[in-house]
């Protein structure tokens, strides 16, 4: 029974991951992006759970719970607290929505091309979906480069990280549990640190625009 639904479930989860990433590029409101990030966290957790059930490994299911707690709940909560506390400043990105979405499409095609060269020896269903992870990494980069608010840059970093996790789970069933713990903790701490810095930035400059960080140069 499960084996027949398995490919569809993998497709559904990775589809949700790609869709949320693309929507994050499209939407300019920070709060909307944070909600999408939370959805993405749930989709990633579901993907891990599906792989875990297919492989019948308890450890992978535990990782799914960890992903759900960290990426689905804790990180969006930290970010949302940061955003509610401030005046609602919407993003004015360097790319307009049409150009950005077009770039997303190009990046997705690019990642399929790269992955077809890379994963020649692997014909499993999960490896077929691995390009989605690469596409998410590239979309995360796009967000990092084109956004001007500190909070949006943070979201770009998290999409990048989700993409790496997706690649990890789809190509090798994820890294060992103790490593996943370490990686999740590191990412959580980085976000907390950037959150603290964004707070200091607001105290010093009155806003969180990255463009004003231009005093240090040669």
């Amino acid at each position, binding site marked *: 029974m499960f084996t027949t639904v398995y490919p569809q479930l993998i497709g559904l989860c990775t589809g949700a991951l790609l869709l949320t990433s693309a929507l994050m590029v499209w939407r300019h409101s920070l709060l909307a992006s944070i909600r999408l990030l939370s959805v993405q966290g749930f989709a990633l957790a579901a993907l891990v759970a599906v792989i875990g059930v297919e492989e019948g490994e308890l450890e992978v299911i535990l990782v799914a719970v960890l992903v759900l707690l960290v990426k689905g709940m804790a990180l969006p909560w930290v970010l949302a607290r940061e955003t509610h506390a401030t005046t609602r400043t919407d993003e004015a990105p360097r790319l307009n929505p049409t150009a950005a979405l077009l770039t997303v499409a190009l990046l997705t095609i690019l990642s399929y091309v790269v992955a077809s060269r890379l994963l020649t020896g692997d014909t499993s269903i999960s490896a077929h979906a691995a390009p989605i992870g690469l596409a998410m990494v590239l979309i995360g980069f796009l967000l990092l480069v084109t956004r001007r608010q500190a909070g949006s840059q943070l979201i770009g970093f998290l999409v990048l990280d989700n993409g790496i996790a997706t690649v990890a789970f789809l190509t090798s069933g994820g890294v060992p549990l103790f490593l996943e713990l370490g*990686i999740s903790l590191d990412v959580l701490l*980085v976000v907390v640190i950037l959150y603290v810095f964004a707070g200091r930035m607001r105290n010093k400059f009155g806003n969180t625009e990255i463009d004003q960080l231009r005093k*240090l140069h040669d």
Partner: protein
Amino acid sequence: MSFALWTPLAIPAVLALLSLVVPSPALRRLSPVASSVAVLVSGLLLVSAVLADQVPTLAGGLLRADALSAYMLTVVGAVGLVSTWGGLGHAGNVPARFAGSYDALISVFLAAMSLAVIADNIGLMWAAVEATTIATAFLVGHHRTPRSLEAAWKYVILGSVGVAIALLGIVLIYAASRGTGEATLSWLVLSQAGLPLDPALIRAGGALAVLGFATKAGLAPMHSWLPDAHSQAPAPVSGLMSGVLLAVALYAILRIQTITDAVIGPDFLRIMLSVGGLLSLFVAAALLIRQRDFKRMLAYSSIEHMGMMAIGAAIGAAALPAVLLYVLGHGLTKATLFVISGRILEVEGTPKIDDVRALLVRRPGLAVLWLIAMAALIGFPPFSIFFSEVGIIVAGYATGMGVVVGIALVLLLVIFASLTRLTVAMTIGAPVAQTSASVAAPAAVLPSAAAPGIDVTGAMTGVVPAAGVGASVTPVDAEPRPEAPIVPDRSGHGPMLPLILALGTTAVVAFIAEPVGTLLTRAAEVLGGIQ
């Protein structure tokens, strides 16, 4: 001897906790020094074990000290000791409320770096390197000025994105390792020759991992965080980052290179590392020529030396002992220089080279060591950087990479000239008679006494010595005036012993064949060097 594998992790961790709770500032400030000593002693114990043909392991092989790991742990401890002990005099303008967390974070940093070099697992090493980003983020932003905030933000974003790319590479290597039957991230397993690893995955994974760690190692074109972070962090932290963090990132690159070389041959990463190394040298040369800030000068010099080490790594087996010696020599020299630069910054109150003149006459206590350390950094014998650079260049010619080392040599000469000029500008010459000159002499000859508002004249006077005629100009504008006698400041403004020990070590280490030479050879063998 395997207890020496957990001491460099546990003792700094405990000391970090203690420095958060101990109320006495005097005791608390000693805790980073004690952490460094713990790491250094553990490193030396492991080195002695390795030289006795043992390979200590712990926690089911998760922690393992071969010759390379033991050597790197010793480097971490030694550079840490110079930075923290030398930094004891550095009070800074730190609010007392944050002083405890400063000392705690340095201990955490040392523990994380120790874990990174003794972990026999790429993933664990990755987590440790990322943990150092977290520990150093607040250290870089410690002064809480807008500039240090900017440096810290750039550092965390670039550092964590770079390391995230490395994680993607590690994930691909992990996927490739399924070919061995059981997926693994152990260095020991993956470095064996003749493993059935997927070449396409290893190529992509190796490239991404090296790219990611190269960001952390400050190699161009991913270097832009480095000068900002190094110039804004407190001086001991800059020393730790330059001497330890960059070295550990290079260590990660060397280990990954061993894995990829066994599967797809050395050519692929050789090109990547050569390009990165030459670009780093070029960036350093271009930005050192007109450098105005002495801490940024040291930061660009770090980029230069990392570039040279990357070229050594690209050359491969023949250059590896020189590269490893380089790591120690550069770490100790740079830590010394950053510590002195922190003291100069504190007593002179300015990071501008133009405003710091005639140090040798005014403050011989700092200037003598600064001159000696700069000579070591520039690559004068008998200091070990000279022998490392010569070793890399000779090995490069021998392995048919003459063009690369030829270009590197030209760029090194440019850097040599720039650093010499800047050092001479800071130290040699006669001082400007401050009090009387500001009243009598025209403003154009007042580099240091000019009021802060007159930026234009300050910049103009800075240009004159920049043209290389500083020696002939200074006697004119520094006519001795009886009413303003200059009292030479012979104070070292902090502990001098660690700095003297560091420079002494770099001066003699290249001449000690036993055990240093043996250790370096064995460490290079771990990386598939000299068979």
